């Protein structure tokens, strides 16, 4: 059966690349420019007609538009970035869940290794980094909540130089290495961030 994919955040090159990758595999791909896009209801209605959604892949790596040093921080800008990111993604996941439950049940997040809380390389754009940290937590919470239903999760940090595997391929890969011994060899029972070379990134 043809796989149905919804990719939100197509304005970002990695998400756009994932859409192209899935199309090459023969999937039907629906796109949203951003998770909070006005086109959301229309696109979801079209997916509803398909009867299921296999993959919801989201990228919301919005940067602050007015990044300033301490003393001049633009809090309105920060709130807007958070709203587009966390609120937009949360709302999209919630409305897509019923369709995902009829499909492969995979939730994918494209993020940035620069926003690893433990080792943040992003040191100036608070809005960007704090929103990504919020999204990482959101994915972990959804993992806790939905994994018992059979959902699987991907959190991918593309390489800045474009090397390594593309986001689409990573989202598509399965990590249950031996179905006969699922308890030990099923990587799906934990949620991790990885980069394009499959290196695990600290949260």
């Amino acid at each position, binding site marked *: 059966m043809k796989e149905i994919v919804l990719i939100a955040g197509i304005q970002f090159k990695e998400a756009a690349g994932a859409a192209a990758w899935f199309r090459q595999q023969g999937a039907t791909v629906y796109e949203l420019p951003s998770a909070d896009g006005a086109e959301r209801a229309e696109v979801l209605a079209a997916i509803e007609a398909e009867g299921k959604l296999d993959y919801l892949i989201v990228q919301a790596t919005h940067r602050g538009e007015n990044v300033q040093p301490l*003393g001049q921080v633009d*809090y309105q800008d920060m*709130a807007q970035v958070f709203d587009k990111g966390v609120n937009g993604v949360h709302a999209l996941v919630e409305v897509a869940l019923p369709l995902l439950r009829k499909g492969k049940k995979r939730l994918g997040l494209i993020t940035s290794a620069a926003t690893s809380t*433990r080792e*943040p390389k992003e040191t100036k754009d608070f809005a960007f980094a704090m*929103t990504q*940290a*919020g999204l990482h*937590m959101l994915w972990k919470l959804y993992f806790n*909540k939905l994994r018992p239903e059979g959902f699987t999760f991907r959190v991918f940090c593309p390489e800045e130089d474009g090397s390594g595997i593309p986001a689409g391929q990573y989202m598509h890969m399965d990590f249950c290495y031996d179905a006969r011994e699922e308890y030990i060899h099923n990587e799906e029972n934990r949620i991790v961030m990885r980069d394009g070379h499959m290196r695990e990134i600290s949260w």
Partner: protein
Amino acid sequence: MEYVVITGADRGIGLSLVENYVRNGCTVFAGQFMPDWPQLGELQQQYPEKLHIIPLNVGDDQSVKNAAGLVAGTTDRVDYLINCAGIFPKTEDAAGFTSAFQVNSLGPLRVVEAFLPLMQTGKKRLCTFSSETGVIPLMQRVKDFPYCVSKAALNMEMHMLFQQLRPQGYTFRLFHPGWVKSYMSGAKSTVGDFEPEEAAPVAYRYFVGDDEIDDVLILRDIQGQYWPF
């Protein structure tokens, strides 16, 4: 004489922390969000010289700037800045995410930013109440999404502030008070492992202590354990 600013000082652990500091001889500027709540005023009557109440809503840019202006009118130096104010949103919708982010995540950044000029000549210690709910690797909850997201964002913010301010001599104390019977949901919680009056003295000793490794950002809990955040 050391000067201390404490946000969220109306009640609970913030109020108890104010008492710990004034009892130990510090001058405290206590951020008041709820002027109708009597406890902070009652404490001020006991320490009229040492305790100054300042109106403060950490979710509002102008309120934070005004508070910094009020403190600057009294002292040219702040030694300890303590981010204690926090909320637990009642809803798991966009309003809940936004309010938690504004207060729990952006609130400490607003306060740090506004008080930095006063801290330059002080002890330069930034203290913040974080939580296990912001620790992604150990997160086990299946609800409370807005609160947990806001605390994860706060932890990221602290790492970024640490990178920027540690080279200027600032030291950081991040504290997870455990499950405190707090007022964050409005009324005082009837469940929890610790009373605010039990958690505050532990926080006080951690905040004033100089025996930590200051070149690494650490999240420590009420039992002295470090958290992998």
